[in-house]
């Protein structure tokens, strides 16, 4: 509960369909908080009309490179002269590719990068529009589940603990309502820890096992989807925090829960939600690649116009007090939590 | 405006409309079209004058000039001594396919020219003319629900409602079937006799002219002028089979240079 309202703050999730729409809303002042690609956040901090700051990480890893199942490619070197689809010019996937090119001594002409909408990447691979694609989940898992794709690399194979999405907030929000930002960041830290290391036998508020009686006030969903309706989970789905997260994700992502279950469990370290604190070295390295790839072409980083960690990150909110999540023992859970 | 009605049939005294030396040319892409060439014509008050001539000879153009819809290129047209410059509710024009408004009911159409009036007075006035043309009971109907003849009656009622001095009739029965045409001719003569308006009828149907008019002006081919004006002193109601009727008809056809027998 924040100081301003006894009823607590409503953090309303708002789903966008593409990055440009989100960046435009951030620059236009219609949006003050967003999970966004790390390099894109740095570009906004550097060249955006409305200053933003990275206040926390969204998650680590969670990106894979996928090739056709029956294709001969076993390492990145095999992809010399081939086409690779990426989601966005300023995406972290492009930074990962840059590192792979460095490790394998590729120069720019050795591989062709194609900007491609993530949801169409599996179909694009199947249709042979490119030999590999690198994207965040669940679009990598889809090709795998559908049986025509094979994961060539998980992020951990290329760049362990790689930052992919970050939480940015506008400077205006930081100045106007810092305690809101504080509550948001500590909430995200707590839920991250719950997903990765939470108790296996406790259900988070709002989630009920099939057949359990659901208290009346939980039933209706508010118009803008802030207070989630009570979610009933099939008993055989598994009740580990990751499985509960898959159920919650289904509501907010609108994606099939079993797809999210797959992404969050096979293998478990496919995407990480802990250790989300900002650290200087991670960003410095990403910035090095970003500068080399000309992400800051509009306002190049020079000696007398420097661009450092403090210009795009604000660590104050990570040091705030931790927050505890409303958990309750899963009554009659019986079902053994899957490992 | 006195309601003194000269006895029907007797030639009235005063000149109502004088047309002197009127020319009319139309600019077209292919150069000027000379339609009227020195037309002279006088219409006496309360008279029923018919203007006859081959189609395309410019009789409608003359009527439009007299009504003020068109400006004469040369010469002058005067009504009650005043030059005609634009249309006036005192001189109402009745079109071939009726000019009544399909989006208004009969009542609204007939009352169109009356402007701001208290409702009772307007209703009484409108109903008077609806009864005059025999359309009582149809005041709420819309033109699309009426027959050709009934629509023509509405147009007459609308024209008469503003109590004009002059009625211009441009082949008003052209779009009607033969039976309705005869009925409407008798109707217009009855109204003319009852209201004493000055009527000017343009038609290419010589019989129609002779059945209705006191005098018939015969127009030449284009560029047209008035060839001659015949007095039609036949008693009403007129029968087109009477020998004098047929003689005048032959005369007019002769003047027009058109062989009558088929």
């Amino acid at each position, binding site marked *: 509960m924040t100081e301003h309202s006894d009823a607590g703050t409503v953090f309303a999730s708002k789903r966008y369909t593409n990055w440009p729409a989100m960046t435009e809303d951030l620059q236009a002042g219609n949006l003050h908080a967003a999970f966004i690609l790390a390099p894109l956040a740095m570009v906004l901090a550097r060249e955006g009309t409305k200053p933003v700051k990275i206040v926390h990480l969204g998650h680590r890893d969670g990106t894979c490179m996928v090739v056709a199942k029956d294709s001969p490619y076993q390492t990145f070197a095999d992809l010399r002269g081939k086409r690779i689809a990426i989601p966005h010019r300023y995406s972290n996937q492009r930074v990962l590719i840059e590192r792979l090119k460095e490790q394998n001594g590729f120069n720019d002409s050795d591989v062709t990068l194609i900007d491609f909408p993530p949801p169409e990447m599996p179909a694009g691979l199947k249709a042979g529009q490119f030999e590999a694609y690198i994207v965040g989940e669940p679009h990598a898992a889809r090709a795998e589940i559908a049986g025509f794709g094979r994961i060539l690399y998980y992020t951990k194979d290329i760049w362990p603990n790689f930052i992919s999405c970050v939480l940015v907030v506008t400077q205006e929000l930081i100045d106007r309502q810092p305690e809101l930002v504080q509550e948001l960041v500590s909430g995200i830290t707590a839920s991250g820890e719950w997903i990765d290391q939470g108790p296996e036998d406790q259900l988070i508020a709002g989630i009920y096992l099939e057949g359990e009686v659901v208290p009346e006030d939980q039933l209706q969903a508010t118009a803008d989807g802030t207070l989630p309706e009570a979610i009933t989970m099939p008993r055989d789905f598994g009740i580990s925090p990751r499985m509960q997260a898959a159920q919650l994700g289904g509501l907010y992502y609108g994606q099939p829960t079993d797809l999210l279950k797959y992404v969050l469990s096979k293998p478990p370290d496919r995407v990480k939600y802990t250790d989300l604190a900002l650290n200087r070295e991670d960003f410095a390295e990403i910035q090095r690649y970003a500068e080399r790839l000309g992400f800051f072409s509009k306002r190049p980083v020079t000696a007398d116009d420097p661009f450092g960690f403090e210009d795009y990150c604000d660590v104050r909110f990570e040091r705030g007090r931790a927050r505890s999540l409303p958990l309750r023992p899963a009554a009659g859970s019986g079902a053994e939590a899957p490992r | 405006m006195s309601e003194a009605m000269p006895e029907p049939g007797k030639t009235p005294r005063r000149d109502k409309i004088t047309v002197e030396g009127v020319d009319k040319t139309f600019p077209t892409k292919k150069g000027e079209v000379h339609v009227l060439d020195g037309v002279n014509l006088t219409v006496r008050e309360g008279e029923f004058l018919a203007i006859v001539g081959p189609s395309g000879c410019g009789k409608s153009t003359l009527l439009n000039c007299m009504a003020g*819809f068109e400006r004469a290129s040369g010469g002058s047209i005067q009504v009650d001594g005043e030059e005609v410059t634009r249309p006036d509710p005192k001189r109402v024009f009745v079109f071939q396919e009726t000019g*009544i408004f399909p989006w208004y009911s009969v009542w609204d159409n007939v009352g169109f020219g009356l402007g701001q009036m208290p409702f009772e007075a307007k209703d009484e006035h409108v109903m008077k003319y609806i009864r005059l043309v025999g359309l009582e009971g149809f005041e709420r109907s819309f033109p699309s629900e009426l027959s050709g003849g009934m629509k023509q009656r509405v147009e007459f009622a609308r024209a008469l409602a503003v109590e004009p001095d002059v009625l211009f009739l441009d082949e008003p029965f052209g779009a009607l079937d033969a039976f309705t045409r005869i009925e409407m001719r008798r109707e217009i003569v009855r109204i003319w006799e009852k209201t004493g308006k000055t009527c000017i009828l343009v038609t290419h149907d010589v019989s129609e002219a002779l059945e209705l008019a006191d005098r018939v002006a015969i127009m030449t081919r284009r560029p047209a002028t008035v060839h001659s004006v015949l007095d039609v002193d036949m008693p009403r109601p007129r029968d087109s089979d009477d020998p004098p009727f047929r003689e005048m008809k032959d005369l007019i056809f002769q003047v027009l240079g058109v062989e009558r027998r088929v």
Partner: protein
Amino acid sequence: MSHSQAPATWWRKFALGSLGFVVTIALWQVATWGNDITEVPGPWLTLQGLRELATDGVLWRNIAASVFRVAWGFCLAAGIGIPLGVWMGWNRDVVLFFNPTIQMMRPISPIAWIPFAVVIFGGANFMLAGRILFDASDSSAIFLIFLASFFPIVTATTSAVRSIELKYLRSAANFGVTGLGLFRRVILPAALPQILTGLRLALGIAWVVIVAAEMLGVTSGLGFQVNDSRNNLRMDYVAAAMVVIGLVGLALDMAMSNLEASALARRGMSRR
């Protein structure tokens, strides 16, 4: 059709119409046999998706957003387009002044305007009594709908006024009706049928444009629903959204044609 036929009975219309409908559904079912929700879905999957979206409430929010934007864009376009069209139709110099510009801008598809729309309207929300009336995506979408509807309406109105039969104008002049009275009692009513046809056409175009316009830069509306479902690998939701787009578009068109019919009811022209 050399011989004259009796008008189709109500029963015949319904039977043939639904037969056509059933055949289409059957073909659709066969063509998409066995597909799951991440491929082109069959009618049954689409129906289920539709039910889910409806019970979830998101469908109604998106329909409201799309119809809201079409309504405002269309009404603004009519509010400005009709008077301008009448003025252009009535005054020769005015049409010479405006027409070249209008005819040049008309073929530019509203979709091309999206980047400008977002920049122009990307800014603040438009508030009313402390509540958001138009948020950023609302106003840019309304702007696009305005453009999509404005040009057909102006063109239709201009030609409507120019093609008013001379005898009506002369009758009015003959009875001394001029100025505002002439517009209100003769010009507008005479031009109304063609204007209404123009409005119906413009509404159809607007509805096609709104879905495309909502694919970018908005976070609600049926266009957003299609794109968002695609991102979430829910092709059943995409198909469901398309069915809804079709139905709502049909409903709007029927509403418009009813308005047109009732407006022209007693003029004998509506029974086209």
